[in-house]
């Protein structure tokens, strides 16, 4: 069906075309428009131009999904596979899942995402519990046996709760859409359709290269202005194909002509993790925001029960009605602005809010990169990360004694230096009609440089004690 299209101008992908009826049924809704007011990342304290949001990322993910789906239909030789892929149940479900994959994301995205599931609340696993209630007969776990991330579980629930009639209208499979959003494959590839469904799940939420990751890598690079590895996205998108492997299983492959781009995707993603997402300034302001929210919840909780804030704001209720947060405040369709407004009301009770709003950090980082941490503690904490973890928990108290300052003045932020390496079964390449794993084709896989590390933030007047503090940490770890 050649439906009428609407065009969205996007600096990353150019024009994004979306069916008019889908714009009306999905995009022009309270739930989807909420995403315009949710920051995509926490990098803005460092990269002021990074004003991109979950709305444009969702459109970008849809756009890449649409283009890749068209490539698969064009490149795949097997007629039976193509006919299944042309069914609404697969095509519409995949494209709508791409569009809606973040529709339940938390205000301030991943910085506050944990509050869906636990945080300080007495309602752990709330997001997964809701997902189980929505699909009671299904065990939502990824193929390897993991829980979906909280924002994924919540987005799947929001889609099913608020768009069930629309999913039905376009012959979508609601459970498959939820699986695509959460990355939860079917445990049993008992027939071709289940196998194809799993490949499509992997295309939206997979282990290595999927449309969600591709959009955020391109977009975060563009908005931050960093000089990242270039990705020839057109070449990559045009190369996607479904093909049977030697064992008769359907695999999602990239044509060999895109081989060079595959490594670039991995390198670009690793660059962002190492130099942008894990930057000390980005993590510091995320921590301030997170701490502010916890304190806000405590203050609001005083008036009602302790968990009241989490239970109301991070739930389905404010998607339906304005919910009362305190005697003076209500929240409806929670977004970044609502959280900021609430925090501003408590600026005198929450010192972190003042620090956030004035962008005047009250602490400085003792080291500023994972590379420095490795250099400083190569003989100790890098070799024994569990010791490092233990020490990082004790440090606020120890350093407050050492520096004779309140414990609250010391902030320790733990981080994972992520260095992704393509694993054997993660990416396949089609070479002269033969499905070969990327690792087999490229030879030995490089060693991962991932590792646990932490930043130490102290009041600036103690910065001259840096050497003594490093010595103290080193002595603790021996």
């Amino acid at each position, binding site marked *: 069906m050649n439906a009428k299209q609407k065009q969205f101008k996007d600096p990353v992908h150019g024009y994004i075309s979306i069916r008019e009826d889908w714009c009306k049924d999905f995009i022009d809704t309270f739930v989807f428009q909420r995403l315009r007011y949710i920051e995509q990342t926490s990098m803005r304290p460092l990269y002021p131009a990074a004003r991109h949001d979950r709305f444009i990322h969702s459109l970008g993910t849809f756009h890449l999904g649409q283009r890749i789906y068209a490539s698969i239909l064009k490149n795949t030789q097997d007629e039976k596979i193509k006919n299944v892929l042309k069914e609404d149940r697969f095509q519409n479900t995949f494209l709508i899942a791409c569009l809606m994959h973040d529709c339940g994301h938390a205000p301030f995205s991943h910085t506050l995402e944990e509050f869906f*599931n*636990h945080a*300080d*609340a*007495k*309602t*752990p*696993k709330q997001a997964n519990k809701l997902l189980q209630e929505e699909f009671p007969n299904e065990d939502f*776990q*990824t193929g*390897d*046996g*993991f*829980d*979906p*991330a*909280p924002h994924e579980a919540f987005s799947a629930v929001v889609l099913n709760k608020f768009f069930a009639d629309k999913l039905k209208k376009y012959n979508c499979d609601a459970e498959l859409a939820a699986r695509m959003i959460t*990355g939860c494959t079917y445990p049993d590839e008992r027939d071709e359709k289940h196998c194809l469904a799993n490949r499509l799940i992997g295309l939206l939420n997979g282990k290595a290269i999927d449309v969600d990751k591709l959009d955020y890598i391109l977009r975060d690079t563009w908005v931050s202005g960093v000089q990242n590895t270039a990705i020839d996205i057109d070449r990559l998108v045009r190369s996607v194909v479904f093909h049977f492997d030697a064992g008769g299983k359907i695999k999602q492959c990239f044509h060999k002509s895109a081989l060079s781009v595959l490594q670039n995707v991995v390198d670009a993603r690793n660059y962002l993790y190492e130099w942008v997402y894990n930057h000390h300034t980005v993590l510091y302001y995320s921590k301030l925001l997170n701490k502010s929210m916890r304190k806000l919840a405590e203050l609001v909780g005083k008036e009602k029960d302790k968990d009241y804030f989490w239970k109301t704001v991070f739930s389905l209720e404010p998607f339906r009605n304005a919910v009362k947060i305190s005697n003076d405040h209500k929240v409806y369709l929670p977004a970044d602005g609502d959280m900021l407004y609430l925090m501003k009301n408590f600026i005198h009770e929450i010192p972190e809010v003042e620090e956030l709003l004035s962008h005047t950090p009250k602490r400085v980082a003792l080291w500023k990169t994972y590379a420095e941490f490795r250099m400083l503690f190569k003989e100790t904490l890098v*070799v*024994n*990360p*569990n*010791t490092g*973890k*233990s020490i990082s*928990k*004790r440090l606020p108290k120890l350093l407050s004694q050492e520096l004779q300052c309140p414990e609250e003045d010391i902030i320790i932020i733990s981080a*994972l230096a*992520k*260095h992704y390496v393509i694993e054997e*079964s993660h990416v396949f390449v089609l070479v002269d009609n033969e499905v070969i794993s990327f690792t087999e084709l490229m030879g030995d896989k490089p060693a*991962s440089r*991932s*590792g*646990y590390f932490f930043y130490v933030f102290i009041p600036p007047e103690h910065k001259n004690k840096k050497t003594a503090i490093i010595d103290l940490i080193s002595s603790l770890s021996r």
Partner: protein
Amino acid sequence: MCKYLDPAAFMVYVFANSPQNQAAHSLQRLRKLRDEVANSLEDQNVFIEWTRNAVLGAVECFPDIFKQEDTKIIWQGSNDGLEKQGFNDGFSQDFEERLNDAIKKALELEAAQ
């Protein structure tokens, strides 16, 4: 307030309570054990995180004690329980006992199936 266990801490306790000859668990099995343990400790309001990012992050973070091989996690630490020291900060003795008991019970249940 809920008690939060990250996957690294949970796996350290699972391997510490596993029979000496069982140095590997599949991820699926670990998830089932997580469910059992979380149920047993429901009155303690325990949250044991098990998302892909958190679990694989834990394995990458602590290569000296965990190794991933396909869908299995292999224990590389010692058997003297010393590794637990890095992960039991903030646990009361009572909670640690309850956690150990719940894991043992879950392992027995799994073995019987």
